[in-house]
């Protein structure tokens, strides 16, 4: 979701590291947190946080939370989950190290190989962290209005379509227009029939698209598909949250799972070729009943 805060300072980042001293990965998490702190993030000490959670109330309320687990025991993320903290990003040092060909050791002292990985890892976290620019200057998130849905079911599958406010093409992609901009994404039908999303390749910011052009692509555990733009215009933002966690499309295809934001050039023209929410509901109902066997394909 687009961030509501005016500033995009790395000072918005709050880091909760594992802090553990029983293995090398624990020491590495602590070191990584310190590197991030040098760049302006604030650290929550997990030990102190457990004794006096109030101490960090302010930081945790204001910033984006990055949780660094040492190993897969995941103490830091478990702690965050127990306290109901909203995690913006989490990573496990053993995993990250492994992906880079380094095996974290059993002794707690931080070795050279793992230490050398940390600066790049810190940069990576910082690079991904800044949220997208707000939807429109001065209007932080104009797409935040609540959405209500209509449902229909085909056997045990329940499909949802927004009651109003969305436009659809026959490629099951939607547009939600606010002012001169539109967010786009894929419908509930796509996420259910294509199965679990594993990869979202966003379009490049600045790309000019015409209606029915590709505007990013998705890969799922079953298949690969293009997102076919329901509108014409210029890509002004992509949903970084979905790049990081494509499963958001499965969880919430119409709101948090938006994929790109487009500055519209001819919505009146585009609209002629789109269905509104009720029309798409009827269209999809027929289509789902016709094609539902595909859903059972595994």
């Amino acid at each position, binding site marked *: 979701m687009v961030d509501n805060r005016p500033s995009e300072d790395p000072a918005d980042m709050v880091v909760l590291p*594992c*802090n*553990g*001293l*029983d*293995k090398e990965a*624990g020491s590495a998490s602590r070191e990584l947190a310190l590197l991030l702190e040098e760049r302006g993030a604030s650290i929550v000490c*997990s*030990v102190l*946080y*457990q*004794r006096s959670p109030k101490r960090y109330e302010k930081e945790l309320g204001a910033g984006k939370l990055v949780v660094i687990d*040492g*190993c*897969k*025991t*995941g*103490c*830091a993320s*478990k*702690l965050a989950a*127990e306290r109901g903290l909203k995690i913006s990003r989490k990573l496990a040092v053993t995993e990250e190290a492994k*992906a880079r060909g380094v095996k974290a050791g*059993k002794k707690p002292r931080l070795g050279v190989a793992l230490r050398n990985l940390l600066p790049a890892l810190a940069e990576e976290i910082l690079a991904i962290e800044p949220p997208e620019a707000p939807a429109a200057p001065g209007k932080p998130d104009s797409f935040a209005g609540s959405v209500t849905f209509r449902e229909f079911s085909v056997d045990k599958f329940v499909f949802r379509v927004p009651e109003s406010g969305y436009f659809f093409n026959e490629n099951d992609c939607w547009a939600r227009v606010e002012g001169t901009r539109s967010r786009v994404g894929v419908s509930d039908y796509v996420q259910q029939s294509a*199965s*679990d*999303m*594993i*990869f979202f390749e966003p379009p490049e910011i600045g790309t000019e698209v015409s209606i029915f052009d590709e505007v990013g692509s998705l*890969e799922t*555990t*079953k298949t690969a598909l293009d997102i076919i733009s329901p509108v014409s215009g210029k890509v002004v933002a992509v949903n970084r949250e979905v790049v990081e966690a*494509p*499963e958001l499309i*499965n*969880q919430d295809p119409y709101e948090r799972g938006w994929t790109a934001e487009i500055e519209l050039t001819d919505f009146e023209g585009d609209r002629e070729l789109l269905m509104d929410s009720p029309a798409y509901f009827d269209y999809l109902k027929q289509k789902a009943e016709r094609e539902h066997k595909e859903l*059972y*394909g*595994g």
Partner: protein
Amino acid sequence: MDNKKVYIIPCSGIGKATASVGRDATYKVIEDKRPEIADTLCLSLLTMGDEETVERVRGNKVITIEGCAKDCARKNVEASGGSPDISHRVHDYLKKHRDLKPESVLDIGEEGRKLVKIIADDIADEIDELSNESGGCDCGGGM
């Protein structure tokens, strides 16, 4: 109760090939890689609250493998009062190995079997880690 074990519990969902991958990875670990210490149990028994099975997940280390984002294995373990030490999602592995898509529920195919091997290797390592730990990392205590 039996000796301390690490229980690997896949979701075994019947609708997705990724669930079959989880099931096969479980077998690979408990039969080939770490037969002495790892075992599985029927998730169904947990779902319906079988006492002996509930005891097992509460008293031992547990690793779950999920076939989809609904996280059935983890949620069923948690509903039984347990807490998985590690929870895997097959699709997280697919994110890293995009070419290894399993074919179908009944036959995951060559690629699917490669994915099984990768997951099983990881879990075997994790079992070693878990069995070396005495009661978890407890970095801050009092959790």
